[in-house]
């Protein structure tokens, strides 16, 4: 977070076309809610520094899979996950791995903007504070500012950092949530339908932000809007009835999908 220079160099490397390998790797992931099986042998590679979109009809398991990646499913008592998910070749379901640390590495943005009912500053500062990322007030200020800048919100809120975060507009709230996720310096950012509660302009702003963020983060986004998936993502995965039906370059998926179910879904023929 603090060595801005190096991250800028990395940015440039990305722009020059440096390839990044797999960031998140899932192999044979199954999820059960009690007796009900929600995901069937999902195997997928998700590249770093790009946007991967999960699409599919409601209840297809895309959100469930997303929530496996930061182990948010742990909070549901009846949920059981088998298989293997690695981030940078590190098994995130390893018993020795601390789930709280994992969630600092894998940020999450939710469907409905959910800022804490606190000030804008406190919203962003909360994560760094509980993880002890800032030693002094000045460092914390710096983290808050850079995070808000990364979330393209700094200009709009810099004069009212002490106003409540819930007083912002829906789009601003969502960007505040992104800033909050970014503040703890994650590697992967999961977004669960981040624009479903936003108007088109706010959606466009968030999409622009996602486009910016992909230079530094591995972004995984669940969306119901096919157009949104087509607009923001480099790769797209289509889930149906708990099965990962097809995964590939977004261009291919949206012009010439190989699986009939994908084609039916994205052209609005699902029956």
């Amino acid at each position, binding site marked *: 977070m603090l060595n801005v220079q190096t991250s800028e160099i990395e940015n440039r490397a990305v722009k020059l076309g440096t390839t990044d390998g797999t960031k998140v790797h899932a192999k044979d992931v199954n999820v059960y809610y009690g007796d009900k099986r929600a995901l069937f042998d999902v195997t997928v590679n998700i590249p770093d520094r790009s946007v991967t979109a999960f699409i599919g009809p409601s209840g297809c398991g895309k959100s469930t899979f997303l929530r496996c990646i930061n182990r948010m499913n742990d909070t549901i008592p009846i949920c059981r996950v088998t298989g293997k998910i690695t981030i940078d070749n590190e098994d995130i379901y390893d018993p020795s791995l601390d789930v709280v640390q994992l969630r600092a590495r894998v940020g999450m943005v939710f469907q409905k903007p959910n800022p804490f009912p606190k000030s804008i500053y406190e919203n962003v500062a909360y994560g760094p504070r509980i993880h002890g990322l800032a030693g002094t007030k000045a460092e914390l200020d710096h983290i808050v500012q850079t995070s808000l800048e990364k979330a393209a919100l700094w200009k709009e809120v810099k004069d009212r950092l002490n106003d409540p975060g819930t007083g912002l507009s829906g789009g601003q709230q969502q960007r505040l949530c992104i800033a909050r996720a970014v503040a703890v310096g994650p590697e992967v950012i999961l977004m669960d339908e981040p624009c479903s509660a936003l108007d088109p302009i706010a959606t466009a702003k968030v999409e622009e932000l996602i486009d910016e963020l992909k230079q530094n983060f591995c972004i995984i986004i669940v969306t119901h809007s096919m157009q949104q998936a087509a607009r923001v993502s480099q790769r797209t995965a289509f889930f149906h009835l708990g099965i990962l039906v097809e995964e590939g370059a977004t261009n291919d998926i949206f*012009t010439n999908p190989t699986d009939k179910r994908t084609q039916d879904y994205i052209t609005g023929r699902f029956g």
Partner: protein
Amino acid sequence: MTTERKSLLSGFMPWRASRSEAPAVTSKAAGPQGAKGDLMNEHIVKSYEEELALLDKKIAHMGGLAEHILGQSFDALERRDPKLAEQVVKTDKQIDQLERDIEEQVISMIARRQPLANDLRHVMAALRITGDLERIGDLAKNIAKRALAIAHESHPKPLMTGLRHMGELALSQLKEVLDAYAARDADRALAVWRDDENIDSMYNSLFRELLTYMMEDPRNIGLSTHLLFGAKNIERVGDHTTNIAETVHFLVRGVNIIDDRPKSDDTSSTLFSQG
């Protein structure tokens, strides 16, 4: 907006009676296509499905017209029939109107439906095919005009026969590719694409013949030039047919034809003195 909707609706009504036709055509091609699956479910939004079918209907109509005036223009050339030639010019106006119609519909569909995957290819293919058909119509008109210009000159028999053959081949190619489109048959389209070579080689030989003819007697130059342009027009109809074949292939398979296109039109490198 309202005018556009009106035009769509006016297009709807006559077609509605024969609605069952369109799905029947597509399902016929389902067999050989297999996994690729043109055995499509219907759209959840019915009017979308109807608009797509209407697009096909219009293209079929336009294709029919293009075929028709192309044949007529050959006849006009052969029979030196000015009336026929005038009919061709008139029909071409219909084709132009249809092109504008289809273009308008495609634009409105892209704006309102945001088609994806095969629907996107369908709509884009329609746009490209209408463009090609409109050009074919123009070329037929051009041939008809030349027929008018040379109506009062004697036509050397062997030359006319060559031209006639070439025209028939181009016409059958066009017919074939339009069928391939209606049936969503990529293999047939690919065959048409490959057969364009024949038209090109026929044009080559006709070109040489005409050159020789002109060199024999400078008085033939006027007639020969018109005939040469006529041949060139037919050759370009063949090129547009190949374009349509490519479009059909892309529409069905989602990829462009990869192997090099057979090219035997070497007239561009043929020098006058070589004859």
